[in-house]
């Protein structure tokens, strides 16, 4: 095989060999490789430490077609901030330590093992031997150090950098030997291994130059030649057609194999179509153009499920997602902002009884029924019931009670006018607006239901749809809003990513952004608890601390939690090893294990 022969010498003389070649030659070689190198799985090399998977053994071949709502913007794992880019990059790249989407636990990936010092500050990882990038170049500690250098470089502005900063100091990365790297944290960090998830390891030989030139952000755009993009993921770039699709092909050097020692992935190609919106996604799936669909809305799920038997696909309801939708009141400091009207209403919003009344007036079951067509669960806290490790089972779930709400309001000094309008103790009618993103039909529906529910309490609520950026501008910048329906969460099951929400100084502490010090006792308490759990290394103690946080949140209702949708996905029946998960990416996390069951049934797209 051509690819084999060509790849051979490189392996023996890796870095040095490459450095000797001029730039032009590199380019030429890269081109030649991409033309000649077949993407057939490479035979196993001696000394190659493959990870063995425990999936059902599949057969090679076939193209899997997936539709994305919007086009990825870049292939650069460091600058990518949007979901579609990250989804594609996730298939091209690999991380050191990976969170298994099915078990929600970490597992070794590019490292074969890691160890942690007693104080929880020093991580030492051992890399797998013989791992090669998708262009055939070997992967070692230099690449790891280089990757972290890039992520941590302030000039590169990686959105991931903040993850790698603990106690105000970035993590220190140190190469011990060719296959050993040591990470040192400024302070202990609970579940620190989780931060390695999805941090793509990048090839130094391809990116060093642009990094040195200070042009890293411009590297690996969609228009970069596929030969110049290489990663450690199951697939590698093949083709990008602007506005239409990205085609990935098998990474012949991928470092996983099934139990029969077949090098993964099974699929020849993975194709992402860009279709614009969910409806188009559904249309394409319904028409059989795509093989897998993720995150279908409940309505479309219902629509598709009517046709599932006749059209040869299967739908899966994976249960509640980690995302939480909530209603948040504006409790920001509005002094010097010239928003007196809102400031006047903050007296209500600050009153816990008022928030409790709102919470108990909202019919969460109806939200689940009307917004999610029953495929969702009501929420009373920020942790979804599907987050088995962290959800506080003891959290009370008070049922809807208009009577209770009225009592609360009465206790807080509100009264009712003759026509049923609720008045505060100053005789002002209770009237406020809820802003929601107009492009998010679900949140608009929640707002409408809440509006109707609260009108039963005599509150005059306006629903104001706002275009998403306009909404963000109001929530984060101008504070010119009264209440808003938003959603957070979903990335990881661990509490740490939530720090910015619950710490009073956090950037996503929505109801009171940038408070100089905790405005209330319970906020101060949460601050302490969250800080504590962050450095606590033992799960059971962390869980206990986090339960307390959840209870405090539930009691004080900075946000009125509403509901979370179920994760609904679908796939053609002949896609095997399909094990969708709650964590993102819901369907493609084990794409290297997917295969087409029957002969000839390669993705329908290719046949058209």
């Amino acid at each position, binding site marked *: 095989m051509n690819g084999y022969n060509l790849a051979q010498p490189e392996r023996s003389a890796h870095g040095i060999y490459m450095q000797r070649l001029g730039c032009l030659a590199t380019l030429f070689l890269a081109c030649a490789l991409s033309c000649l190198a077949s993407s057939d799985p490479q035979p196993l090399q001696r000394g190659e430490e493959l990870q063995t998977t425990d999936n059902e053994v599949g057969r090679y071949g076939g*193209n899997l*077609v997936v539709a994305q709502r*919007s*086009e990825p*913007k*870049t292939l*650069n794992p460091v600058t990518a*901030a949007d979901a579609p880019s990250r989804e594609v990059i996730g298939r091209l790249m690999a991380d050191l330590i990976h969170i298994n989407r099915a078990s929600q636990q970490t597992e070794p990936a590019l490292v074969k093992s890691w160890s942690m010092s007693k104080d929880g500050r020093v991580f030492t990882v051992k890399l797998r031997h013989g791992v090669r990038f998708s262009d055939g170049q070997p992967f070692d500690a230099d690449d790891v150090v280089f990757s972290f250098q890039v992520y941590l470089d302030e000039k590169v*502005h990686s*959105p991931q*950098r*903040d*993850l790698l900063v603990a106690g105000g100091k970035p993590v220190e990365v140190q190469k011990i030997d060719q296959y050993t790297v040591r990470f040192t944290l400024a302070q202990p960090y609970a579940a620190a291994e989780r931060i390695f998830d999805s941090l793509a390891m990048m090839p130094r030989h391809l990116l060093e130059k642009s990094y040195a030139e200070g042009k890293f*952000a*411009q590297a690996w*755009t*969609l*228009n970069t030649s596929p030969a110049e993009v290489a990663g450690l993921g199951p697939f590698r770039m093949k*083709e990008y*057609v*602007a*506005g*239409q*699709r990205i*085609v990935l092909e098998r990474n012949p050097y991928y470092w996983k194999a099934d139990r029969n020692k077949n090098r993964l992935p099974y699929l020849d190609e993975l*194709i992402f*179509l*860009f*279709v*614009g*919106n969910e*409806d*188009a996604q559904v*249309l*394409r799936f*319904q*028409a059989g*153009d795509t093989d897998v669909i993720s995150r279908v809305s409940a309505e479309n799920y219902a629509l598709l499920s009517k046709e599932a038997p006749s059209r040869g696909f299967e739908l899966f309801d994976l249960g509640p997602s980690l995302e939480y939708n909530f209603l948040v009141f504006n409790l920001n400091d509005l002094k010097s902002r010239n928003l007196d009207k809102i400031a006047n209403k903050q007296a209500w919003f600050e009153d816990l009884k008022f928030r409790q009344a709102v919470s108990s007036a909202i019919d969460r079951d109806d939200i689940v029924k009307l917004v999610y067509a029953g495929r969702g669960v009501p929420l009373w806290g920020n942790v979804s019931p599907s987050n088995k490790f962290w959800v506080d089972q003891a959290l009370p779930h008070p049922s809807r009670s208009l009577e209770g709400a009225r009592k609360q309001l009465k206790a807080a000094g509100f009264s009712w006018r003759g026509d049923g309008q609720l008045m505060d103790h100053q005789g002002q009618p209770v009237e406020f607006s809820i802003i929601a993103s107009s492009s998010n039909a679900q949140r608009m529906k929640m707002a409408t239901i809440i509006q109707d529910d609260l009108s039963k309490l005599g509150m005059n609520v306006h629903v104001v749809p706002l*275009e*998403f*950026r*306009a909404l*963000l*501008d*109001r929530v*984060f*910048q*101008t504070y010119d809003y009264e209440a808003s329906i*938003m959603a*957070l969460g979903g*990335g990881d099951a661990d509490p740490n*990513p939530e*720090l*910015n929400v619950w710490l009073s100084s956090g*950037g*996503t502490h929505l109801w009171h952004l940038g408070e100089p010090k905790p405005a209330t006792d319970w906020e101060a308490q949460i601050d302490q608890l969250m800080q504590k759990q962050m450095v606590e290394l033992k799960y059971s103690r962390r869980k206990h601390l986090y339960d307390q946080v959840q209870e405090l949140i539930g009691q004080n209702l900075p946000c009125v939690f509403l509901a979370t949708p179920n994760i609904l996905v679908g796939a053609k029946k002949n896609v095997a090893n399909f094990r969708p998960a709650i964590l993102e990416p819901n369907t493609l996390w084990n794409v290297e294990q997917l295969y087409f069951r029957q002969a000839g049934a390669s*993705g329908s*797209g*290719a046949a*058209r």
Partner: protein
Amino acid sequence: MKYLERRVIHGILLLIGVSVLCFLFSDLAPGSFFDEMKLNPQISSETVAALRSQYGLDKPLPVRYARWVESVLGGEWGYSFAYNSSVRSLLVVRARNTLLLTTLATLFSWLVAVPLGVWISNHPGKWYDRLSMGGTSLLLSVPELVLVFGLLYFAIRTHALPVGGMTSVGFDQLGLWGKTIDLVTHLIVPVTTLVLASLPVLVRHVRASMVEVLKLPFIQAARGHGIGPARLLFRYALPAAGNPLISLFGLSVAGLLSGSLLVEVITGWPGIGPLLLEASMSRDLYVVVGAVMSSTLFMVFGSLLADVMLVVVDPRIRVE
């Protein structure tokens, strides 16, 4: 060509005006590209601020404008925050796709509208005239979105047509004939939608102008000279009814880049529409400005084309 010079100068002034206003409006519109990152609890606000300043978004408007003009003159047309690449490279491919779609749609709608409008204008009040008028007012009151969804639904039910995109996945492996067929089948739904959406207005205009012209004495005279009805309508009346139609045609050309936004979004046509929509939703400022500028270019071109055509068609305007 003094006249042409003047029109070109007007066009340039128009482009400058549009770009300035574009910038102004974008400054007024709330939010910026990097705002969405703020929603991610894992990204600190410092990082967002740093990104903003890296792309010069914290600079005052005139500075940003000057930078942009510089980049336009350098052929880059600005820089996309989202794609990390020059706007021109983003636009060129998509503009080509949009043009393929809209040119065909414009062509077809005129090819249908002119004969239909001419035919019904000849017998105002006949049943087919009334039918066409009723049909056009019905089409006028159906939103484009509903039309396109309807057609897509039809495509799914019948399996006759692809339900979106521009080419099939295996496009590259197809032969020339296969590629053509593939492209044409993908074109049918969006083109039909666009044709149906623009047809009623065109038909009505053609009919109205024709009805006016058919009252003129020279039509009677031509009839008196024994000119047959088809010849009379197409050789005599239609050119004379041309002026308002040519202005309308100029507008069609002007709208070539901007007229198909929603249809492109729904059918997943990889044109300027989805790009512009996404860019304006995510405040990818220079992409929006670039897209608007390119449609302004078409506007200028369209009205220039209309002028030239007027001179060609209406001898009264030119003096030899």
